[in-house]
């Protein structure tokens, strides 16, 4: 932990020195302290609030819908092996597909608003949830299912008290991926074409050669995404510990 902080701190310090000495021209990159100052100034003006709200609402919607749909679809697909056999090649190649190629299509279908980017983020994350749900369901110990049958539990009770909890670690991996992929989906879509959002502001600053805003936004996104990842990681560890799996 200390080592990691030291490496990271050293890297930032090196970047700062290189920028200050002019080894890296100001036109290419501004010093990290200037990025931080730019970010503080930008947040003070409050002009970013609308974009932050738009981006994170879209991400939350995409995560929520892909987790719900993904877990349900995973259970259905798991229950019908024939369907699963047909879908397997799709799942295997899905993440090789450049999903952004569909973005213009969704803009035509839904208009230039929040929906196309949510749809992209949803499509990008839902398959990860499905695949991880299937993985989890495959690994439910047979003895637990036998036990449930011995206690004459119905399918619903078996599902909620036996199957889901024992598949949960895998489903959580799916949720983690859904969060990362939804962020990527929303911000990338905004960068390509949108009317608001942090990704849109980023592309606007980049097209206007506004380096201070550009690097302030990059810093903001890095901080946000890393914080979200750390929080999710901590949450996962707590859950796993509570279930006594680690």
């Amino acid at each position, binding site marked *: 932990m200390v*080592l*990691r902080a030291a*490496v*990271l701190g050293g890297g930032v310090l090196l970047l700062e020195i290189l920028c200050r000495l002019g080894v890296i021209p100001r*036109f*290419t*990159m501004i010093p990290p302290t200037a990025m931080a100052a730019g970010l503080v100034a930008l947040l003070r003006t409050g002009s970013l609030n609308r974009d932050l709200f738009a981006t994170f609402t879209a991400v939350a919607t995409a995560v929520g819908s892909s987790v719900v749909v993904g877990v349900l679809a995973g259970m259905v697909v798991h229950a019908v092996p024939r369907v699963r*056999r*047909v*879908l*397997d*090649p*799709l799942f*295997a*190649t899905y*993440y*090789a*597909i*450049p999903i*952004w*190629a*569909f973005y*213009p*299509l969704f803009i*035509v*279908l839904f208009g230039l608003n929040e929906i196309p980017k949510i749809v992209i983020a949803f499509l990008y994350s839902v398959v990860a949830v499905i695949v991880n749900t299937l993985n989890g369901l495959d690994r439910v110990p047979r003895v637990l299912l036998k036990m449930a049958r011995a206690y004459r539990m119905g399918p619903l009770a078996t599902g909620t008290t036996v199957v889901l909890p024992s598949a949960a670690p895998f489903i959580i991996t799916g949720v983690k991926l859904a969060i*990362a992929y939804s*962020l*990527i989906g929303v*911000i*990338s879509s905004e*960068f*390509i074409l949108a009317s608001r959002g942090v*990704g849109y502001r*980023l*592309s606007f*600053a*980049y097209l206007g050669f506004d*380096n201070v805003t*550009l690097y302030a936004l*990059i810093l903001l*996104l*890095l901080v946000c*995404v*890393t914080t979200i*990842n750390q929080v999710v990681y901590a949450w996962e560890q707590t859950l796993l510990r509570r279930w006594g799996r680690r």
Partner: protein
Amino acid sequence: MSMVAPHRRRRQGRAGDIVLLIIVLGLIWQAFYQVAGDVALTPPLATVGYAVGLMSSPDFWPNVRATFAAFGLAVLISVGAGLPTGVLLGLNKLAGDAAEPVLVALYSVPKVVFYPVILLCFGIGLAPEVAFGVVNGVLPIVIFTTNAMAHVKPIYLKTGRAFGLTGWQLVQTIAIPAALPEILTGVRVGLSLTFIGTLLSEMFAARAGLGHMLINAMQLNSVPRIMSLTLLILVFAAIVNTALIVVEHRVSGRGAEAQLDGAG
């Protein structure tokens, strides 16, 4: 001999499943077309026709070549830099522990965030395309390789040491072969992301390439062109990915057999 028949039947079943999948996807596509109409979509069969027409047009192949020049270079750099880094990080526990969380955090950051930085550093042309491909593709290769190398069963390494292998010999003959299936998964994911990165980069700042054609078609709002280009890109991505999966299965199958032999 008796082993051949069920194997072949299974393979035929798989091919049938894939055909069925394509038909179902085609039907969904057609249904979308019925809802949205010509403004947004072209129907599946017509799109295949456009795609064939596009492939025989003279301006298509130079663009394909441009994309593959960038993609090829990016793959060389991603794999060439990613594999050794992963191997070193995996072997050195301290370095691996320090680097892995940072790498995983970077992996989940949307890479477009770095796109402006790359343009500012590399200008416009082939260099930023390659660089953006590498930024997308190198991380999964490093992460998967690091994990694979770090989780080679200690008993394999002990056996190797008992036979007097040292240093690089141990890595080359024991650790890398044992980690190979996972490393290949990383390479497959890395290649897909490199391809996506190259295409995305071509969409914003390039003078040629499939991504450039795609963004041009979007700006001209030429629906048939968008659809047929998308189709060709998808088919290409699917074929490459499937080929890599087959290689992966071969390799891990070999590993499993070796383990069985050892057990017997």
